[in-house]
């Protein structure tokens, strides 16, 4: 009995340390690999607690291995380009500029019923109210309504006229890496990208932490120097 008690204490402390190490993301915001790892961790942790003949090392070794791998594979794609392509799925634009992309929906195995359900849950009645619907890598759908459906802000009251935004911001450079999918979504070329950087007196893509471009072609650049390290 005492052995089970001590084992439970050790596993509890290990799991707390491991979850702290993994980060603060809630289950709903986890990437697929993180979700799988979390489920595996709970299963592995239970093994030595329910089976007296199972040594503690059968839980500790796989738990520590999985957590280390999870940290490696969440960190490395941010630094190694091909790993990012291999492991991270970019966001998918399901509705772009007010038009439903059926091909992308099929690719994401999303039916019209699924889309309508998500729309209703987000408080919209029709796809025509949406300018952009983006399926994020964590599996959640983000909706950006057309200007006519946007709620008024304090700024709108102050200026007297509602702000007209120009669609979605496409992140064409993230942490010094060109996001090919975002360039494609924004219908921009690399030539445009480099000329825009040149205009901002930036010679190397690696100097940029974030560069976005909206549908009207307006770009915003945040360099690494501007960020706190």
């Amino acid at each position, binding site marked *: 009995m005492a052995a089970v008690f001590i084992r439970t204490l050790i596993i509890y402390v290990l799991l707390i340390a491991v979850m702290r190490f993994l980060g603060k993301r809630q289950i709903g915001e986890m990437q697929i690999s993180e979700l799988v790892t979390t489920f595996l961790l709970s299963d592995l942790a239970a093994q030595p607690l329910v089976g007296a*003949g*199972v040594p503690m090392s059968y839980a500790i070794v796989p738990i*520590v*291995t999985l957590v280390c791998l999870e940290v*490696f594979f969440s*960190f490395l794609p941010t630094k190694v380009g091909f790993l990012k392509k291999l492991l991270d799925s970019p966001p998918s634009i399901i509705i772009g500029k007010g038009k439903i992309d059926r091909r992308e929906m099929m690719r994401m195995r999303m039916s019209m019923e699924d889309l309508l359900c998500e729309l209703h849950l987000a408080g919209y009645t029709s796809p025509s109210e949406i300018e952009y619907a983006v399926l994020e890598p964590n599996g959640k759908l983000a909706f950006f309504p057309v200007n006519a459906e946007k709620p008024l802000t304090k700024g709108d009251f102050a200026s007297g006229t509602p702000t007209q935004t120009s669609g979605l911001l496409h992140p064409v450079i993230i942490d010094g890496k060109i996001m090919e999918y975002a360039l494609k979504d924004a219908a921009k070329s690399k030539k445009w990208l480099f000329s825009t950087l040149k205009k901002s007196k930036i010679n190397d893509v690696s100097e940029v932490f974030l560069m976005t471009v909206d549908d009207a072609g307006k770009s915003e650049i945040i360099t690494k120097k501007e960020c706190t390290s």
Partner: protein
Amino acid sequence: MKTFIVALIIFALLCGAIFGVSSFVLGRISELSGLALALAEDEAEFFPPSERLLSGTEEFFALWDKSMRVFPYIMGYEMLDRADEAALSLRSYAKSGERAEFLAAKMRFLDSVERLRELFSVRFESIA
């Protein structure tokens, strides 16, 4: 970046610990197999049990008993039980001088530790 480095250090330590533990288990298994193989088999040693047979078996059993204090931290009892049962039989049959049962227990023990050796060796077969 800090988390990545910490994870890298922990992973390296874990790999080192696994290598160390595997080396220890393989070394101990070789030692135990050596002692078991060296145990007398001649019929003359059993009627009555010779001093050589008894001291050899006791030396073997003492090492196995010592190992059984450490092995359960590393592997499950379901893997150890067969070898443990064989080691106990080996000791009791040596004392009672039952040669046929002693030899069968010896074979069972050697086969059991061979399975453990396979499990701890870094080989494709061990993954199964």
